[in-house]
């Protein structure tokens, strides 16, 4: 187990190094003068000199790389040119939108996928299963932003139940902040429900094939109890892993959903950074997001190794 954890931690650091270096390479790969690139051709020599000093362009490429990497390891993701504050502070503010959105989406996805998957597994090979399977196929093929547009058209524009976009800060009005996240979380959650549902169905069907389940049925245990107590409880390991692996997908999805609903999250920050040519912000945001995804997948793997007694790692 310890050897496994050590190996897994080593993979985490290698991955982190690759991701963070990729973000840095993007910063360093701009041909010519990065300060000129950011400020444009009309910039005054004084402004250019100030920005060059701020970006540390007087140092060698190697020294800049070491400085950048050290900063990331200690939680300093650089300084935004457009906002003139640290990228870390900006990201912390934006995570107050992106994190609740991610968790809300995960909740919606589980709420749809778990009962749906168990129900499909209980009716495997029958009409109900075929219906769920067809619906999940459609779910897998539906673009997230398209679903968002139509949910917004229905619940915000037509019925007026929920805000169509934008975000009110939690400190100003928690109720409204929550309301403005309902449609985005529903969009992201529904779009992630289809793959999760297939995993739940497969995992529960695997368990239902086991001898002890047959024994429970033979003893006269009601089908509902068999399904929920044995089926889902034993399948929960693979479902939890799948939920953890969703981190990457949720991140990509949140960038799109934040754009659909004009939410000021980390994803829209990254998009803004590109349009404003804010290189430290884009590199910092990408490094931060990659680090977040890697950390979640590390935690999921560790939790899985500790929780599942059947898994032995050499």
């Amino acid at each position, binding site marked *: 187990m310890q050897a496994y954890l050590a190996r897994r931690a080593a993979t985490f650091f290698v991955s982190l190094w690759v991701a963070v270096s990729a973000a840095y390479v993007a910063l360093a790969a701009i041909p010519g003068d990065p300060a000129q690139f950011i400020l444009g051709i009309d910039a005054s020599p004084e402004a250019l000199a100030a920005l060059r000093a701020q970006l540390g362009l007087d140092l060698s490429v190697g020294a800049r790389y070491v400085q950048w990497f050290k900063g990331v390891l200690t939680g300093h993701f650089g300084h935004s040119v457009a906002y003139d504050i640290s990228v870390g502070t900006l990201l912390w503010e934006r995570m107050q939108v992106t994190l609740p959105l991610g968790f809300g989406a995960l909740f919606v996805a589980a709420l749809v996928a778990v009962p749906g998957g168990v129900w499909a597994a209980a009716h495997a090979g029958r009409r109900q299963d075929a219906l769920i399977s067809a619906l999940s196929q459609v779910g897998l093929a539906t*673009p997230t932003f398209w679903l968002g*547009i*139509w949910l917004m058209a229905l619940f915000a524009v037509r019925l007026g139940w929920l805000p169509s976009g934008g975000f009110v800060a939690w400190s100003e009005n928690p109720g409204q902040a929550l309301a403005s996240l309902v449609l985005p979380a529903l969009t992201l959650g529904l779009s992630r429900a289809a793959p999760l549902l297939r995993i739940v169905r497969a995992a529960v069907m695997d368990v239902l094939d086991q001898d002890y389940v047959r024994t429970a049925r033979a003893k006269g245990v009601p089908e509902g109890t068999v399904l929920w107590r044995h089926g889902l409880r034993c399948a929960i390991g693979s479902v939890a892993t799948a939920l953890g692996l969703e981190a*990457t997908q949720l991140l990509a999805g949140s*960038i799109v959903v934040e754009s659909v609903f004009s939410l000021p999250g980390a994803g829209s920050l990254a998009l803004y950074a590109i349009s404003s*040519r804010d*290189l430290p912000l884009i590199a910092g*945001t990408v490094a931060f997001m990659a680090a977040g995804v890697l950390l979640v*997948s590390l935690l999921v793997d560790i939790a899985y190794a500790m929780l599942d007694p059947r898994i032995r790692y050499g």
Partner: protein
Amino acid sequence: MNSRFIAALVVVAFWVVVALIGPAVTSTSPERMDFRARLSGPTTTHPLGTDQFGRDVWVRIVYGARPALGLSLAGVMLGGGIGVIVAVAGWIGGRWSDEVVMRLTDALMAFPGILAALLTAAIVGPGVASVLSALAVANVPAFARLTRVELLRWQQETFVEAARALGMTESQVLWRHLVPNTAPILIVQVATALAQAVLIESALSYLGLGLQPPYPTWGRMLREAQSFVAMSPYPALFPGLAILTLVLALNGLSDELRERLDPRRRARRAG
């Protein structure tokens, strides 16, 4: 052949034909504005209606099929090609290089393709390069791992042992026996990845990171239609249906190809 496979094949073939010859046979330009018919519903002149500038939605969908299929295929082939090359190179280099290659693909697997698109867009501006980089990053790990697993599996087969016993060099065994045998499973993976790639390409276009205007893309058509959905639902409906049908059909096709070409599935079915 079952009916589902035929339906998927017909839909994919339809979109391939549209992408290949559609722009050549449509009578109007995707940029032509008909100001008297802005946001109109389907009519005989505009079979799928028009957008906020009076541009024909069908003609724009026809033009948009090219980046949807072409860019997606190019991205999958690029990422897939790199993945296969990297896996084979790691294999040739022996245990250590194999381990390094696998750890690097592990790292890449956790790196969302969309972040690669953001980085590329920051360097060269949004466009073809950002789409291709996102698709490459998304596909390299899957193809590399699959190739490696297949190489390991075929290596244990009797005919490979026989080839070695007959005096074939390691490189001859690799190129004549191992690599060709990985082809069927890689074809299935191309189909699976293509469906995902169409979704990624459309999402990047929607975000403004895909092919730039004036060339129409399905994702950008939906972005533009979003603000006018209360006035006319058609510009926000049909490009989405185009993506949905294409991805649905590609997924159906890949499921069926997997059943036919994946030796493990074939064996299970026969057994």
